[in-house]
């Protein structure tokens, strides 16, 4: 049996199990509480495992291992930002859980006079951030599954060439995610997430132990081998290979690079607490205390996981080597699976390599499926609950009607994501993950924080903050070197979305956070003072009591 058949077989097993869970969840989902919040019956630990699963996307598992394998230390900077950010979530989670019901919109709307515009803004922002994040995951899935199944240019698998396999994968992943969400709601999504999270941790532990074992459990010797194999020596173990690069003789570009790095760090550290699929998971537990416990669990799991990516990334650099990684995928996304094959072969010959590769490949596939489902659920919940239920039906929808709309909305959002991903399938969209973090930090986080802590805040402030933060992040990225005007200094090939020669970039930074996050806060404050509606301090007091004590929580 070839490794490819084994990988494919494990994909099928995972899909069958999760479909079974979805059918069970469908039979046990009755009202809105079940569909949006899994009946709020998950324990803090279960929900924490699922939260960690939501966060450990393919971008962080494969992406960070790949960045470390190719750029050394700088990949570690990424994972530190991703982890530290959870402390902000820990401080906010209990208040958000107590004040809201199903969505971020619930939290923002509780204290304002005019609900409709606030709900509408919350839905717009939730869907926008989710769709960008979805797009990144799904385009990545297409490329990745073809790679994991080992379909190279000119090869065929089940009668498909590499290009067709990419499109088929995107459509299949999209169809499965719509099915999980539309039928199983939060119950199915959470169990899929828990299974994937356990598989992912298990896979990472096995790989880490095998890698460290190769170096006699001596971290310094692992680092030394990675540095030697990278061809860059000790510089590989220091910051500066990728982020904040020094450009000799060009002080301007050096400063731009450093500001860009700080901008990325800011977006990572502030964005997490505003990601829609993370926020909607805060509501799947019985009370605020369980919500806090789930974030504590997530911090532990995510932290241990990122420590292991350090071993995986440096291990891949040392044992697979830069050349072999780049030959498979220039951005390094296959470094972890390649490492699995290499260490598997070392202990179990060809079969060992195939088995371990198949396992890690299936874990990566499960990761993508679970994360996209969480994103679709968050956006369909916001569309149905915030927009349909509170804006169109003026807060008086029948519960069964709203849930039916949510199921339909998941179909709409999912289809939109599939179409966009197929269109963008050959673009390098990895930057969209960082953009989603920047948008969440610029639009959602100011609105959430000011709603909870600023007495004077009002509906005009929420609306201005969300639209201002969202628009500034989008506009700045559109005019950044990510979209146009960045070329490889040696070959002249375009490193932007647009082909070489097109250059309308006006904003020097690739990550907008450094500018768009302050704009988000400034718009929220300005909107509050300039808007005509008054603040409602009585409702703010009510919100504070609910948020801090948990009285009257759903």
């Amino acid at each position: 049996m070839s490794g490819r058949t084994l990988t494919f077989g494990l994909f099928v097993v995972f899909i069958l199990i999760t479909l079974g869970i979805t059918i069970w969840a469908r039979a046990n989902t009755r009202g809105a509480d079940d569909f949006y919040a899994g009946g709020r019956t998950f324990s803090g630990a279960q929900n924490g495992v699922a939260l960690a699963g939501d966060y450990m996307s393919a971008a962080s598992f494969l992406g960070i291992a790949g960045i470390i394998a190719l750029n050394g230390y700088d990949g570690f900077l990424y994972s530190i930002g991703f982890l530290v950010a959870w402390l902000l979530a820990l401080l906010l989670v209990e208040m958000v859980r107590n004040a809201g019901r199903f969505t971020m919109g619930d939290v923002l709307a509780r204290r304002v006079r005019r609900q409709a515009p606030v709900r509408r803004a919350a839905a717009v922002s939730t869907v926008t951030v989710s769709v960008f994040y979805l797009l990144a995951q799904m385009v990545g899935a297409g490329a990745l599954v073809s790679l994991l199944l080992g379909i190279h240019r000119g090869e065929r698998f089940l009668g498909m060439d590499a290009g067709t396999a990419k499109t088929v994968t995107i459509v299949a992943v999209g169809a499965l995610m719509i099915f999980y969400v539309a039928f199983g709601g939060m119950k199915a999504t959470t169990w899929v997430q828990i299974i994937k999270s356990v598989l992912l941790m298990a896979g990472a532990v096995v790989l880490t132990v095998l890698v460290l074992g190769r170096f006699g459990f001596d971290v310094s010797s692992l680092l030394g081998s990675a540095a030697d194999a990278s061809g860059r020596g000790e510089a590989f173990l220091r910051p500066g290979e990728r982020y904040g690069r020094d450009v000799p003789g060009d002080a301007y570009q050096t400063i731009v690079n450093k500001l860009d790095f700080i901008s990325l760090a800011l977006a990572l550290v502030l964005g997490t607490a505003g990601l829609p699929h993370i926020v909607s998971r805060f509501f799947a537990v019985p009370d605020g205390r369980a919500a806090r416990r789930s974030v504590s669990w997530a911090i532990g799991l995510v932290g241990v996981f990122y420590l292991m990516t350090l071993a995986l990334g440096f291990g891949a650099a040392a044992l697979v080597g830069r050349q072999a990684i780049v030959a498979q995928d220039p951005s390094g996304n296959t470094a972890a699976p390649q490492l699995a094959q290499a260490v598997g072969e070392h202990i179990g010959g060809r079969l060992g390599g195939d088995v371990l590769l198949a396992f890690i490949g299936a874990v990566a596939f499960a990761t993508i499926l679970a994360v996209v489902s969480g994103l679709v659920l968050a956006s369909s919940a916001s569309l149905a609950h915030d927009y349909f239920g509170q804006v169109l039906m003026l807060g008086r929808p029948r519960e069964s009607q709203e849930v039916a709309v949510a199921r339909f909305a998941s179909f709409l959002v999912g289809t939109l994501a599939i179409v966009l991903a197929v269109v963008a399938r050959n673009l390098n969209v990895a930057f969209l993950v960082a953009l989603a973090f920047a948008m969440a930090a610029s639009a959602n986080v100011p609105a959430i924080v000011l709603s909870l802590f600023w007495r004077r805040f009002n509906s005009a402030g929420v609306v201005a903050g969300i639209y201002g933060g969202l628009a500034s992040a989008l506009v700045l990225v559109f005019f950044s070197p990510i979209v146009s005007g960045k070329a490889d200094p040696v070959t002249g090939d375009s490193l932007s979305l647009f082909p070489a020669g097109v250059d309308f970039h006006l904003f020097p930074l690739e990550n907008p956070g450094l500018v768009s996050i302050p704009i988000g806060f400034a718009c929220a404050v300005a909107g509050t003072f300039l808007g005509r509606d008054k603040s409602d301090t009585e409702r703010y007091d009510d919100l504070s009591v609910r948020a801090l004590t948990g009285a009257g929580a759903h």
Partner: protein
Amino acid sequence: MVGGLAPVAEYERFLLLRRRFRRAAAVVAGVFLGWYFVYVGLSAFARGFMARTVVGHVNVALLLGLLQFVSTFALAAGYAAYARRRLDPLAGELR
């Protein structure tokens, strides 16, 4: 009911709860954001210092990065313990 719990916001015990929460949150946020940006700043502007060897192939950059993990775990555990001991009982009284 709109604004139904607002009167509780005047209670002595509630004001104590809010003061404690805000102080704890400010301390945690101040420490982690400050320390994180010190680390980011060192990574961007103090490359020579970060490159110093500590032991074997382990340098200052790696050590400080690992300390970010340690501090995150410690702050999370500390905050969770404080909330259990000093915030939850007060919240329970007011509920």
